């Protein structure tokens, strides 16, 4: 086999430009969806603040479903598009498949809008079995069918994308290299950028998640045919898929930071044995960490619960701790160039840490007895999404826009964006945490009298979200300008 590290022969200038353009289209779409989906969140907090006393709660649940699926999907595709673009430095992902995914995702999103806002389909984002089949007249069968068609379209497209990125990596790296096994074994081997290592791990795992989603959809069909399906099995499979999808999105973001932050710090952030061990461990641990979603399911055997707790703890340690300390070490005493993008990368990794700690707390069985299905749950995952991977992807879009447009950024506006995002974001999240710690349940459209303080927290959160949205709009103005210029370039 011919040995080479030269990747310039992988891409012609024209092809690379096309790929960059496609990535910008993905970025612009994400920027468009962010304020819309965030406004849906704003609406929900207003609903919980009792601002719409005459509105049917069914609207809350339809919006909840659209907001959550929309957000989860948006940041997954944002992460995939970013990682694909960065992988072009080492591999040759398919532009056609990226395009196919773009149109497929658009169709899927339109179907989701139709079934939620048009049909009031309101099961929440993980459509726990058998809820979609028991609408109690709130939504019609067509809405359920549309929902599953949307899932099938999205699932199919994203699976193809996952496989294509793996194929691209496999064309340049052997499995041993891509998984950093050389580093593990202490043997000489090719340099493997952390981006390649983390992407390989994430993509393999996300394929497993998509297979689980397919099984769930098929079993829904089997149930509709009159065979009873074990709800425990369905819940396990659903969370296997859901937990993986959410984690993978975060990992894709982290992979981007490993790749891009060094260029701002002026130092390399390389794969080494610790990094390789950490990410290879994810490959195994992530398959079992989802058990923490089922702590309150009495029928789940006790050893499974114990194993779930151990895996949840260990999953947080290698990838999280290694990356956070790696990031701090990279930045510490470096000639760091703090720009909007680099600050967002840094804050995103730290936000992952904050959300991760909240997640580990909740993944302790004893604590989960109190926090299960309270607002603590949305608190932790909003933290590592909103203040984690969302910031990272926003950083990436800004980085790309700046790279192509060469437009300079304004430091005062950068400071204003960061201040508003931090203040609004963490303020909004603090109300989720506070409410969760005070046993306010999640998914209540309107809080009954016994939970009246939930309404108060929602109103305070409303104020913070207003600040957050100002930050988002200012960011869109700044980065949007760069993206538009980049398009014309």
């Amino acid at each position, binding site marked *: *086999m*011919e*040995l*080479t*590290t030269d990747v310039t*022969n*992988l891409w012609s200038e024209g092809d690379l430009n096309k790929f960059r353009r496609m990535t910008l289209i993905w970025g612009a779409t994400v920027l468009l969806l962010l304020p819309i989906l965030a406004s849906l969140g704003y609406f929900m907090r207003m609903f919980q603040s009792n601002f719409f006393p005459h509105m049917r709660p069914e609207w809350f649940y339809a919006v909840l479903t659209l907001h959550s699926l929309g957000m989860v999907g948006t940041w997954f595709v944002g992460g995939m598009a970013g990682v694909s673009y960065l992988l072009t430095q080492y591999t*040759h992902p398919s532009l056609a498949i990226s395009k196919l995914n773009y149109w497929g995702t658009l169709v899927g999103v339109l179907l989701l809008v139709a079934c939620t806002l048009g049909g009031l389909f309101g099961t929440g984002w993980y459509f726990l079995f058998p809820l979609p089949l028991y609408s109690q007249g709130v939504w019609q069968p067509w809405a359920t069918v549309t929902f599953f068609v949307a899932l099938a379209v999205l699932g199919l497209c994203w699976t193809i994308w996952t*496989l294509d990125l*793996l*194929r691209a990596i*496999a*064309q*340049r*790296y*052997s*499995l*041993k*290299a*891509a998984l950093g096994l*050389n*580093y593990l074994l*202490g043997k*000489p*081997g*090719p*340099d493997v950028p952390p981006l390649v290592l983390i992407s390989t791990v994430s993509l*393999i*795992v996300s*394929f*497993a*998640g998509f*297979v*689980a989603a397919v*099984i769930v959809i098929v*079993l829904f069909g*089997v*149930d509709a045919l*009159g*065979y*009873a*399906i*074990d709800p*425990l*099995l369905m819940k*396990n*499979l659903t969370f*296997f*898929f859901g937990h993986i999808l959410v984690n993978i999105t975060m990992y894709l973001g982290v992979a981007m930071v490993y790749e891009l932050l060094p260029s701002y710090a002026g130092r390399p952030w390389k794969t*080494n*044995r610790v990094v390789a061990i950490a990410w290879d461990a994810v490959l195994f641990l992530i*398959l079992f960490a989802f058990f923490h979603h089922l702590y309150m399911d*009495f*029928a*789940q*055997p006790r050893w499974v619960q114990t194993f779930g707790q151990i895996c949840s703890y260990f999953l947080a340690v290698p990838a999280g701790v290694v990356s956070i300390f790696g990031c701090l070490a990279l930045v510490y005493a470096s000639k760091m160039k703090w720009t909007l993008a680099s600050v967002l990368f840094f804050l995103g990794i730290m936000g992952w840490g904050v959300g991760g700690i909240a997640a580990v707390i909740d993944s302790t069985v004893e604590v989960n007895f109190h926090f299960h299905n309270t607002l603590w749950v949305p608190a932790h995952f909003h933290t590592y999404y909103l203040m984690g991977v969302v910031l990272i992807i926003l950083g990436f879009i800004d980085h790309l826009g700046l790279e192509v447009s060469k437009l300079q950024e304004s430091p005062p506006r950068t400071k204003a964006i960061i201040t508003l995002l931090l203040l609004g974001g963490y303020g909004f999240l603090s109300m989720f945490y506070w409410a969760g710690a005070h046993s306010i349940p999640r998914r209540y459209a309107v809080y009954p009298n016994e939970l009246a303080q939930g309404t108060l927290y929602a109103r305070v959160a409303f104020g913070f979200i207003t600040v957050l949205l100002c930050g988002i709009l200012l960011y869109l103005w700044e980065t949007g300008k760069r993206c538009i210029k980049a398009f014309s370039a």
Partner: protein
Amino acid sequence: MHQSFLGLSATRGHAGSSLRKSVEPGKPPCTRLARLGFALCLVLGFAGCLQAQQSAGKPSDQPPNEDFYLYKQVPDITVQDKAGSTIQLSQIWRDKPVLLTMVFTRCTGVCSPFLNSLKSATSAAGGLGTDYRVLVLSFDPKDSIADMNGMAEDLGLKSNAAWIFGIASPPEIRRLAEATGIWFRWDASVQQYDHPAVVVAIEQGRVVRMLAGATVPVTGLMEVIQELRGKFVASYALPGKVAFRCFEYDPRSGHYTLDWGLLLMVLPATFAILATVWIFFLLPARKRIADSFPVARTY
């Protein structure tokens, strides 16, 4: 949380042949006075009958929803037992957990087969008398202790101390029925009570589990008995044809066994491994950065 045995829908009883009582035809009246007297008796008797019938709960084709009754306190009613002595329900459950069921002796339908089934299930499941007792109460105000004794005798249970056959006052029976999800309704057209066949497991005065169905399944009962012994049974039954389950619980051994559903849990990871092998080892590679690439590295 526990779920009820739903494999059988609640069988409601008012059909079939009478097992114990036959209606005695009245003698034909001869005189006018006698005829008048007879008519009067009929009217009064019918009115008396109406007064004697009672109903409780809401009739349903579905078995009672166990989730609704779990851990509910049952009322401490006064029961008159086989020997005719009165005893508080709390004295019975304080001594040992109780399997409670409600029947009526004139039942031409489900009561006798159901009690027979309960009898054989309890003897197969074991623990009767040591771990729990069975309390059979009549919800029919017309049933006397003698009627209940007759029923016990028919079932061969009269001298079995672990089986308590008894009656209680109609208001108390109604309270108990309502607290345990049992309903009954007098159906004048067939002169029978319509009611489900239900066994309610009571421990320390609270409902801990329910079984519904004319036939009491031995394994289902074993699960209930395990609960009554204070063992946590992490298993629940599913209605109808079940496609896949993760675990099966064997109440005889008290062990869980893996079931086919678990195989589905292994599929995603298996497919991921297969896809990885296919992509990395079977698809043609471009110019690969080979494993043996000579990069000096210090660790």
